[in-house]
Structures are given as structure tokens and as C-alpha cells.
């Protein structure tokens, strides 16, 4: 602006009435108060309807600023992680005859797998696994599939998560394009619902490779691996 004549306080006779309560309401709405002041304002929110209404009115006015931002669609894995967090693994279907037989067969195998992989897995439910190791990074990621529930548990079993990106896990059927299973957690374990087309044949698919690629934060922007593939492993059946 070329206008240099910004008036000082003394030349603002039309300055709006400057009352402390009004200032507190807007500062509270904006999160500008320190912890102590903010606690005091929260008490007023409960006790004084006029004050509360003024805070609401400010939230209402200022929301326009946010409504004006260009929208940014979040990566689709965010919703998957959100669902996993809110709704945990999908409910298991009842076991049919085949299921009972499989359960009997896998119970013993699972006990072995639990020793091989890591103690903290949901392996009681897992029927297929793959372990992705990147020795030169000291990185090990385990995937445990519960094909009955249509979910995969991805665990950062060892090593540091990348500081400036994400690790993405892929399902690769023979002669098919990789399908993203989601992002590996930065620590601990995350349970991800399987994509519908993977879940449909996850229990029986043969010759499947699980791969790990290094991607920008939030995962591959294209839906296909864009970074270096760090590790691959055959999907084994327990």
C-alpha cells in the first residue's frame, strides 16, 4: 500500500468502544489467551450466556476465512487410518466349516509365527504374513493379514521411520499392478482395512509379493510406487 498516513491511536476518535469483555471474547475465540486467561474465559463461557454468545459470534464470523481456503483433498489412506482408529478391525464373519478346519490347522502354525515375527502381533487372527527387512537401514516391518476380517496389521518392528517421508506397503499379484495397502506406522502397529479388490481374493491368491517403497509424506501421489522399492517378500500362508 502506498498510503503512509496510518493514523495513530490519538487520531482515531471513531475507535469502537473498547471494552475488555469484548476483547476477551475474541481473544478466546482465536486462542490468543494464555493458559490462565483461557481457563478464566472458559468459566465465563459456562456462566455468562452473553459472553458465550459473543465467542460463538466471533467463531461464526471468522470461519469465513477458513471457508475461503482452497480445498485440499487428504490422501485416501488418511480415511483408512481414521476408520481403523475409530472402528478397529471389521467384525469377523462367523466361521464356516472351512473356517473351522483352517482354524484348527493354523493354531499351531500361529504359535510358531508369533515367535518368528514379534510378540505383539494380532497373530491369533492372522492367516498370512510377510516380513519386510531393510538391513542397511536397520528397518524391519511386519505385515500380518487377517483375510477373514479383510484387514492387515502393519508393524514397525525395528528401526527408525523415515524423518522426511513415508513408507508405503504394496500388494503385488503376479502380472498385476501394485495395489497400495497403506502407509507403515511411524511407530507401533496400525490395522488397515484391505482394499476391496484385494480382500476379495486375499485368502487364496497365489504368488503374491508384498513390497515396501519409500514415498513422499502422505504416500505415493500417483497411486503407484514412485520412490525406491526398499524391500519385497513373498506372502506366506500360515
Amino acid at each position, binding site marked *: 500500500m502506498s498510503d503512509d498516513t496510518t493514523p495513530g491511536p490519538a487520531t482515531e476518535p471513531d475507535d469502537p468502544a473498547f471494552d475488555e469483555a469484548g476483547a476477551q471474547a475474541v481473544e478466546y475465540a482465536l486462542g490468543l489467551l494464555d493458559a490462565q486467561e483461557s481457563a478464566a474465559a472458559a468459566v465465563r463461557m459456562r456462566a455468562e450466556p452473553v459472553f458465550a454468545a459473543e465467542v460463538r459470534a466471533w467463531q461464526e*464470523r471468522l470461519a469465513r476465512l477458513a471457508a475461503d481456503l482452497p480445498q485440499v483433498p487428504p490422501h485416501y489412506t488418511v480415511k483408512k487410518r481414521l476408520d481403523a482408529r475409530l472402528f478397529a478391525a471389521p467384525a469377523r464373519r462367523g466361521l464356516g466349516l472351512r473356517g473351522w478346519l483352517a482354524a484348527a490347522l493354523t493354531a499351531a502354525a500361529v504359535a510358531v509365527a508369533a515367535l518368528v515375527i514379534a510378540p505383539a502381533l494380532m497373530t491369533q487372527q492372522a492367516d498370512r504374513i510377510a516380513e519386510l527387512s531393510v538391513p542397511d537401514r536397520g528397518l524391519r516391518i511386519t505385515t500380518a493379514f487377517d483375510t477373514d476380517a479383510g484387514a492387515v496389521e502393519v508393524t514397525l518392528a525395528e528401526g527408525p521411520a523415515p524423518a522426511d517421508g513415508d513408507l508405503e506397503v504394496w500388494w503385488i499379484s503376479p502380472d498385476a499392478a501394485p495395489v497400495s495397502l497403506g502407509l507403515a506406522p511411524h511407530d507401533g502397529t496400525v490395522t488397515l482395512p484391505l482394499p476391496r479388490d484385494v480382500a476379495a481374493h486375499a485368502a487364496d491368491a497365489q504368488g503374491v509379493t508384498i513390497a515396501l517403497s519409500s514415498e513422499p509424506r502422505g504416500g505415493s501421489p500417483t497411486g503407484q510406487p514412485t520412490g525406491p522399492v526398499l524391500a519385497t517378500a513373498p506372502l506366506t500362508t500360515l
Partner: protein
Amino acid sequence: MQGSPAAGMDMTTTTQARRSHVETMIAQVALGDRAAFDALYAATSGRLYAICLSVLKDRVEAEEALQDVYVSIWRAAGRYTVNGLSPMTWLITVARNRAIDRLRARKGVAAVPEDAVDLPTPVPDGETHAIRAEQQQHLLECLDELDEDRATAVRGVYLEGMSYADMAQAQGVPLNTVRTWLRRSLMRLKDCVDR
């Protein structure tokens, strides 16, 4: 209301239709309807993620904040109707507060202790969502009436979670000076919007 321009009426009608749509989805989410939750996410996550990104300027943190936001929405949808905010304002305010909580945590500043968005607040008599929507329309024009640096500061506080200390440091002036002129700018803004 013969004086109302047709374009303005169209905009109001569209805004109200969208509002009631979002409001319906929130009401269904309050009943634990996951399909409604998916629809609400599809309709609003681009906007709420934009806010998280604007405040946090970090994709991973913004994604985590966004998850926190929708966890809050899923759990608090039943209390939405008593807080007196229009539906998009409620969602936007939850998103902004969550993102700022994360920003403050990153800087080692204590989070704002109370999340006021859930507190029940009756809307005062005579004040309707429609009036508030009109005020929102005026906000941008009124920001333009402020000096440019002051308008920038208001945007910085709202959209980037800047604190008085941040602004004082950025401009090399005492915190109380920043506080005085920002308060004054906000009161002017209010005066203009309510006019």
C-alpha cells in the same frame, strides 16, 4: 425485500441448502451412522484438511490432526445441536482448534485447556444462522477496510495460529503493543461486520 439483488438470494439459498445437508449428516453421525460419517468426510475433509495444513504446514502432522478432528466429530456429533454454531462453523472451529493444539504442543506451549466448541451455548433470541451467514459474507469486505498489515495479522492469527508473541517477534515490537493494535483491529472488524 425488493432491494435484495437476485444473485445474493441465490447465494443465500445455496448456502442454506448446503448447511442443512451438512446438518443432516451430522445428525445421522450422532446416531452412529457410518455411511453418514463417510459422506460427511467426503463432503468436508478437503476443507478441514486445508485448515490443518494452513496452521501446521506439515503434511504428516496435518493428517494426524485431521484424524483427531474426525474422531472428535464422530464422538461429539450428538452434542453439536446445543453449541449454537452453524454446522460448517462447528466443523471448521474443531479443525482449527485441533491443529492449533498440535502447533502449540510442537512449540512446547501449553495447549488451551478447555475446548470451548463443545460447551452448550443457546443462540440468543432473534439471532439466526441466516444473519450469521450474512455476517460471514461481509467479513472479507470488512477485512479490506483495515490497513493491509492489520488484515494480514488477523489472517495470520486465524489461519496460521500465530500468537501475540509470534507477532511481536516478527515485527520487533513489544507484545503489549501488538495486543493493543490487534484488539483494536478486531473491534473495528466487528463494528464493520455488524453494520
